[in-house]
């Protein structure tokens, strides 16, 4: 009965994969969601029915081929079904970041000309209604949670469940249309459109075809031997390409189960209950988790602290080797087994990572200590390098070849090349079709032979074939004296200190480098408490002279390690300022995926940059901030600027 793998490879669309799963593994769980305190679950056959009835519902609303359907909300099975149902009727799903403010939302919805919007709840519906004036194409809004929406005009507003019921009622009328629409989907048709957060300028709509998604899912699933028994927790934004590949592409390809948390705040608890076997999180998440563990260990009893440090030291020594399959002495193995019983096992369980067989992190560089910590306690954490335009995968680390300083070898089917300027290019089956309504950008990014510019500068290690990324290509520059300037490289080094949440380094075309620092309130706040430092606000803590001293120490350490590097010794930081506010995506300083938007920051804080270079010891500044509800306010502060003496490069000392 089960179709062979080769047969599966001929499938042209996601709905075909769902039908295949519903036939071959009808009773295996497909989606789970925690609601009303218990895990609700849908098998593949039930999920297929939900998708069908919604697809029929879409037909009753008159969804036509090629229509765009926007989806705004947190990860919920219903939204995954919506995307597959949209594909089933020939429409194109466009998941949108749920925390997007009205202004960003109006751009995206208008740009793709969405006729239909699926919104999670009253909050999202209100947001869409607010901008409705500017959206000429918008016809219908469908919502999941009817709470508080009793008094809304229902003319063009539909309850998700009612729409499904309407679909079920008109099955006779539309079942043929649905079947023929499904049959007509070609491998080259659009599978999904995803807006990239865009570190510069407006977001761009990346069009990925069925071919892109299915081939990528196939290759990456076999790379890590993913199968129907795996399970994942879907908690990352649905608008991000990774979530689409994990929770739809790979899930439908292999038939594994996707679980959705009860709500955003319960994610950690739900993670523990589900115990995923396949897990992705950005470095920031692993950093935060480790910081929490360390903070809590400091409050633990002396015996516990001793056990923890004793066994963690041992784990640092051999944990990674064990995971990589290197030989380890019997005594060490025995000691590790005892540690497993008392420390590593319970710790993994508390973190919710007990069952992780394949764990990935990507997006930013991860600190070597952080990376090693997780690997040493037996979590197979690896790195990958990817982007939306590649349907995620460009390079990834195979089991047994895991290191914190590379991003791995080319993923199956991916070709890599480094241009003369040092920029990384790739070509793969996952390479995107085009940017929506933007032939100019498409041309700039993808050449006629299909090579795509990543915008990152890097090199391939000759011995191992591993790719190493230095920085964003456009950010890499020269200093006044001709030294190489790679801001991200320096920033990452600084961000490995738990006290530093975010930082921005300047120096292109200048005599020396300077930095903005954002402290981590969690870590620094805890440190302040232990050191009896009183503060009443973030701003006050950030400006405290002891905090300045601490950050200065971190910068000195960073400068020392930079001095050892011939290429980057010019990037040592001479002056810095601790910012009075956290850089925030709502203020446009970070992207929604929390990457620094250098140009915006340079523009907004130009007064601070001037002060960093004109030798003043403090500066008064006023900054506009946007609150969560969209209203604006201003905060003002006088910030101190600190000097750091750079380290003289070894061998060059006079």
């Amino acid at each position, binding site marked *: 009965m089960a179709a062979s793998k080769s047969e599966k490879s001929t499938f042209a669309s996601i709905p075909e994969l769902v039908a295949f799963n519903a036939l071959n593994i009808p009773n295996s769980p497909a989606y789970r969601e925690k609601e*009303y*305190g*218990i895990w609700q679950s849908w098998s593949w056959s039930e999920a297929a029915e939900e998708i069908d009835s919604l697809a029929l519902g879409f037909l009753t609303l008159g969804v036509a081929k090629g229509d765009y359907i926007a989806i705004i909300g947190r990860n919920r099975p219903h939204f995954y079904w919506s995307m597959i149902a949209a594909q089933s009727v020939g429409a194109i799903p466009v998941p949108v970041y749920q925390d997007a403010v009205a202004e960003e939302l109006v751009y995206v919805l208008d740009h793709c000309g969405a006729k239909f919007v699926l919104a999670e709840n009253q909050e999202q519906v209100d947001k869409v209604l607010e901008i409705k004036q500017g959206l000429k194409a918008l016809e219908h809004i469908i919502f999941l949670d009817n*709470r*508080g929406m*009793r*008094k809304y005009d229902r003319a063009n507003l539909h309850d998700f469940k009612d729409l499904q019921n309407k679909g079920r009622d008109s099955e006779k009328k539309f079942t043929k249309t649905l079947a023929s629409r499904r049959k007509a989907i070609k491998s080259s048709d659009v599978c999904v459109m995803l807006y990239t957060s865009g570190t510069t300028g407006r977001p761009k709509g990346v069009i990925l075809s069925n071919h892109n998604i299915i081939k990528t899912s196939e290759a990456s699933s076999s790379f890590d031997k993913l199968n129907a028994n795996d399970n994942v927790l879907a908690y990352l934004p649905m608008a991000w390409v990774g979530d689409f590949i994990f929770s739809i592409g790979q899930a439908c390809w292999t038939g594994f189960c996707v679980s959705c948390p009860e709500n955003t*705040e*319960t994610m950690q608890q739900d993670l523990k209950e589900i115990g995923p076997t396949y897990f992705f999180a950005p470095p920031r998440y692993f950093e935060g988790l480790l910081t929490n563990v360390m903070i809590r260990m400091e409050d633990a009893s002396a015996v516990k602290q001793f056990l923890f440090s004793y066994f963690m030291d041992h784990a640092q020594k051999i944990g990674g080797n064990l995971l990589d399959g290197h030989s380890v002495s019997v005594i060490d193995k025995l000691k590790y087994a005892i540690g497993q019983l008392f420390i590593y096992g319970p710790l993994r369980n508390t973190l919710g990572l007990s069952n992780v067989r394949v764990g990935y992190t990507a997006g930013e560089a991860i600190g070597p200590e952080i990376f090693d910590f997780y690997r040493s306690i037996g979590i197979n954490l690896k790195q990958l390098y990817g982007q939306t335009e590649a349907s995620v995968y460009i390079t990834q680390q195979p089991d047994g070849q895991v290191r914190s300083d590379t991003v791995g070898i080319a993923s199956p089917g991916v070709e890599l090349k480094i241009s003369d300027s040092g920029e990384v290019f790739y070509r793969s089956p996952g390479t995107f079709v085009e940017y929506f309504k933007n032939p100019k950008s498409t041309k700039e990014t993808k050449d006629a032979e299909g090579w795509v510019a990543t915008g990152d500068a890097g090199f391939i290690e000759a011995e191992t074939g591993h790719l190493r990324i230095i920085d964003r290509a456009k950010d890499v520059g020269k200093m006044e004296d001709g030294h190489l300037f790679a801001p991200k490289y320096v920033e990452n080094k600084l961000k490995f200190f738990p006290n530093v949440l975010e930082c921005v380094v300047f120096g292109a075309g200048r005599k020396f480098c300077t930095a903005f620092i954002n402290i981590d309130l969690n870590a620094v706040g805890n440190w302040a408490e232990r050191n009896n430092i009183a503060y009443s606000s973030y701003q006050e803590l950030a400006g405290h002279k002891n905090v300045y001293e601490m950050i200065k120490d971190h910068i000195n350490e960073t400068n020392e390690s930079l001095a050892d590097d011939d290429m980057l010794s010019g990037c040592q930081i001479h002056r810095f300022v601790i910012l009075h506010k956290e850089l925030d995506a709502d203020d446009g300083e970070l992207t929604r995926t929390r990457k620094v938007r250098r140009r915006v920051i340079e523009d907004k804080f130009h007064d601070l940059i001037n002060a960093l270079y004109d030798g003043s010891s403090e500066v008064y500044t006023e900054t506009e901030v946007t609150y969560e509800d969209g209203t604006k306010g201003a905060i003002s502060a006088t910030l101190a600027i600190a000097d750091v003496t750079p380290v003289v490069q070894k061998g060059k000392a006079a």
Partner: protein
Amino acid sequence: MTATDSYQTPDGRTIGPNVMEMRNISLRFAGVKAIQDISFDIHEGEIRAIIGPNGAGKSSMLNVINGFYHPQEGEILYKGEVRKPMKPYEIAYQGIARTFQNIALFKGMSTLDNIMTGRLTHMKTGMLEQIIWSGRAEREEVENRAFVEHIIDFLEIQTIRKTPVGRLPYGLQKRVELGRALAAEPSLLLLDEPMAGMNVEEKEDMSRFILDVNDEFGTTIALIEHDMGVVMDIADRVVVMDYGKKIGDGTPSEVRNNQDVIDAYLGVSHD
């Protein structure tokens, strides 16, 4: 408007006939006159507020409605019948639930367990059945748990389901207390200063929950509140008290323009 009429609110809701009527209530503690000759009514489905400066007798009034205090004079009609003096638990069985000004939760118990106690009036199995965990007792427990989980979902407190309430911040404790009152499926919900001590954001959240409760479950709500702004925004009709007397009664805009009310709140110059 006569006492028994239904009426339409400006935002288009239809309010039913009156469910409770106070007739010439007077309450004294020894020589102190806490409430003097007050009459007003509460209609089905409305949000009715009682406001007034400190010591005006608001909480006493709520305790009279609640049946905790028995007024020396006057009578209370509930669902058309004159109410005899009753014990608080008898009142609870009549479908009246309340929250307290100074939170009265079981601090050591979890959010979930606290809200479960609100289901007490809906449990029919006795202690013996509960101990031997008969089929009926188990079924009942499951049904009640499901009901409570809906309330947890409604109040968006999933994150603190298992947290002992003593560890929660004040605003959340107030929300848990509202949850416990809702668990009783009251037809009349009494809220004693639901926003006291809250910051602006917590007040906004609480206002939304009060409106949603009224909207989703059709619950009649009587609330006491200090914060004039909040009351004027969410109440359909307002009773204003001062020194134990009623000095105003009507819609928020009527009350706002009532000279006696303005005097009581802003003070009058005695010259």
